């Protein structure tokens, strides 16, 4: 009887890639939540998942899936 309750309380993590590095997030994590966990201000970075741009307005509803490749981009100098 105790095992199912314990299972319910355990956070299930899924592997993703973050800027090319292995990373894990709780299942159901949104892109917004990921940025918050990294202390990134929403307006400080642009985001793509699996090579596709995800606009700032869509990050809150974008739920990360196992194996997703997340890239964060920031302003730099340029020519």
């Amino acid at each position, binding site marked *: 009887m105790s095992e199912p309750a314990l299972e319910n309380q355990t956070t299930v993590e899924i592997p993703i890639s973050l800027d090319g590095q292995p990373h894990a997030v709780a299942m159901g994590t949104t892109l917004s939540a990921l940025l918050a966990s990294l202390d990134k201000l929403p307006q400080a970075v642009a985001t793509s998942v699996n090579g596709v741009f995800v606009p700032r307005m869509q990050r809150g509803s974008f739920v990360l899936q196992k194996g997703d490749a997340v890239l964060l981009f*920031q*302003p*730099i100098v340029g020519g």
Partner: protein
Amino acid sequence: MNATPSDVKNPDATDLWQVGDVVLKSRFLLGTAGYPSPQVLAESIAVSQTQIVTVGLKRTLAAQGDNGFIAIIQNALKQGQARLLPNTAGCRSAREAIQLAHMARELYDTPWLKLEVVGDEHTLQPDPFELVNAAEQLVRDGFTVFPYCTDDLVTCRRLLDVGCPLLMPWGAPIGSGQGLLNPFALRTLRERLPDTTLIIDAGIGAPSHAAQAMEMGFDAVLLNSAVSQAKTPVAMAHAFGAAIAAGRMAYLAGVMPAQDFAVASTPVGGAPLLL
């Protein structure tokens, strides 16, 4: 182009150019990479009197912080000194450039985009096919596309066909400092596209190269390394500003045609002065 005497005397007052609805005076577009310090960058922007500075974007882990450079650029922006022109440097395909362009628009809050799609690693030569494909989509997506292209006339025409409002042909490969390697092709572009805004982008090394481009009738010059890699970047920014202004004024004044024979300038007549 017929310049009035007052235009030539004070070209800044009347000699303006436009990108869409944006009216510009400065014909000097400046890149922001490679400066020894943010302060030197800030002073170079100020001295150059540029109204357009280029910026980029990069993956966060690879960017390793910007040491205050971006704050300097944003400050210049707030003071109304310059508009930002984000680039898609590092892109190798239209698909990649399109995605990066959307990120740039969100980060920098501007539809202006310097579109770069490289087709060769050694020369960083633009890939004309990917470039045109990317430009077509981005124009459809509402971007004002400044395409970094070669001096190939037909590619340039295709870029105009898909809606680019101007063209940015190279003078020489990026960062090479070789100046205008193919004046014939550039002259042909100018002659065949007389109503198109043409900005020489890349390859400029010395102020004389920039002056040459302006004397040929190009509308503006974009450069970065020639200033940032100079021993004294601020002084070099000043030198380029003067050269670009001089070249433009010379173009408006009308440079005399070169010829293969001498023409005596002192009207002493055909006979010898002393026998």
